[in-house]
């Protein structure tokens, strides 16, 4: 479909999965009411989870998952070479996601605990950008399909995309939610990047920070507030580490 006499480019898209739950990929097949339009706007050439077709000729590679094994590093570097635009899809790809919590444990011991004597190969979890340059990050655990659609539209028309800079609180208020702190929950909403539409606080669970930090977050004040509400440093630390996006801010 033309727009203002301009033909959109129909980019060739490939989707790849690494260490993850494949939930973000699944989101790509969600939002059923606009799925046909979505699949029409792009040409999906590789998407193992839903298609047996595969091609090495693609423009945009969506990477889901963190990197935690040597074969994944090789595979990722190969994809980077082939892709014109490399998009990190979801918090695992952007920050390492929940997998990053593994890094706090001794990996040999972890192996013994899970696999006994037959140890499996595993590396400390890294995000995609720690291995190869990333052109665009889509945050969230899982990603919001509506946001993915908007970003794909920007990719289709090849125009710049700007992430929301404000924290989750802003959209939380726009959905008439009661502040999670007032309901007795530690909430990372004030320092987490918005754009998700605050489904968690609206659904009754405080923000756990899956989208990583907002622009210019006020950590100092946030920590003071969390302490004031009675949350200990350990608790705050556990929450900050949950999705990997706040590593090292404390």
């Amino acid at each position, binding site marked *: *479909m033309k727009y203002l006499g301009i033909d959109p480019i129909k980019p060739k898209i490939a989707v790849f999965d690494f260490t993850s739950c494949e939930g973000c990929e699944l989101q790509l097949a969600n939002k059923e009411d606009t799925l046909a*339009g979505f699949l029409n706007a792009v040409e999906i050439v590789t998407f193992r989870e839903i298609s047996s077709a595969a091609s090495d000729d693609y423009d945009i590679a969506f990477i889901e998952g963190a990197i935690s094994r040597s074969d994944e590093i090789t595979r990722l570097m190969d994809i980077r070479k082939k892709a014109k635009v490399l998009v990190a899809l979801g918090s695992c790809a952007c920050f390492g996601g929940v997998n990053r919590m593994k890094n706090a444990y001794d990996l040999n011991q972890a192996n013994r605990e899970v696999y006994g004597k037959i140890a499996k190969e595993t590396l400390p979890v890294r995000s995609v950008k720690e291995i190869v340059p990333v052109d665009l990050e889509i945050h969230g655990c899982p990603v919001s399909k509506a946001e993915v659609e908007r970003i794909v539209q920007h990719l289709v028309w090849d125009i710049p995309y700007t992430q929301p800079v*404000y924290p989750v609180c802003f959209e939380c208020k*726009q959905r*008439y939610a*009661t*502040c999670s702190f007032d*309901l007795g929950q530690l909430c990372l909403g004030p320092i987490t990047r918005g754009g998700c539409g605050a489904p968690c606080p609206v659904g009754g669970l405080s923000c756990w920070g899956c989208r990583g930090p907002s622009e210019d*977050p006020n950590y*100092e004040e946030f920590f003071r507030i969390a302490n004031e509400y009675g949350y200990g440093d350990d608790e705050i630390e556990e929450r900050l580490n949950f999705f990997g996006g706040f590593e090292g801010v404390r």
Partner: protein
Amino acid sequence: MLHKTINKSEFRKLVDLLMENEEVIAPKQIGSDIKGKAIHQYLPVSTFDEIDLDYEITQYSAKTYFLPYCENLSTCTFDDDDWTQNISYRLQPRILLGLHACDINALLKLDKVMTRDSFPSPYYVSRRKNTFIVGIDHEPCEGGFCQAVGADVVTHGFDLFLTDLGDRYFVAINSDRGFNVLSRVRIKNITQADTKAYLEARQALAPVFETPYMHNLPNLLDIEFESPVWEKWGAKCLSCGSCAMVCPTCYCYGVGERISMDCSSSYKEKQLYSCNLLDFASVSGGHNFRAKKETRLKYRYYHQHRGFSETYEEPLCVGCNRCGRVCLAGINPPEIIKDLQLEGIR
């Protein structure tokens, strides 16, 4: 203005009648916070028992029924190289029940911006005129300072206004449609006893706690533009915009457009924004006219208490202190104003 009284049982009948016909929005308790304090919101209700007219304050103001957080301004449908723009405005009447004086005063201030002078907004006008407003007197709420900004009394901007006289309401009628609606139930002419009871009731509503002294605030703000007070409070600001979202008068917004995946239609959406958000005043190319937290916080106070006063001879703030309550960092107008005054005499 006409005055009548109505029995509470008759009033209930009136609300039932209204609910039968139109959407009714009223204060409703939605839960309690961790300290056990009731949380109220203005929400659509379907039975009289859902309504709690005895509420102290709602978490969110009623402004969103006039300036929704997100509002579709126009839609476009595309046909090859051409497009057609469609615009529609609210047509359905509805009832907003149980507004306190401060929230009605807030609407009067919004009226000044949205219905007069430059570019009256048909979106706002259509929502305002399609809303039947029933106000109610209440005891002053803790932390509020509506008296200090003269917003505790309201004389217009509503259809009906109630004052609780125990078994009945003293009703001020401010529109013909208010009069017509009342005529559907039994009302009584006011007696001298009613007037006396009303005046006593009003007297009992005087605040029992200290409210900030806001005299000469516009000039004080002008003088204290470079005050360290802004740095102190600005350092606390989370730049989350919660204050503006719950504020009954903040009306800043942004406009964005969305196009459908198949490029067959698009819409233009207005989203209320907040001057405390980082990119409020950033321009394409990257320059941000208010890149610092404290300049953004300062701007919000200047707009509310100085800028608006310059144009309309009154502050934009109605003293409900919702912003102070919602702010996790504890930023609130009474304390900031006090700090500025102390700074001024130092």
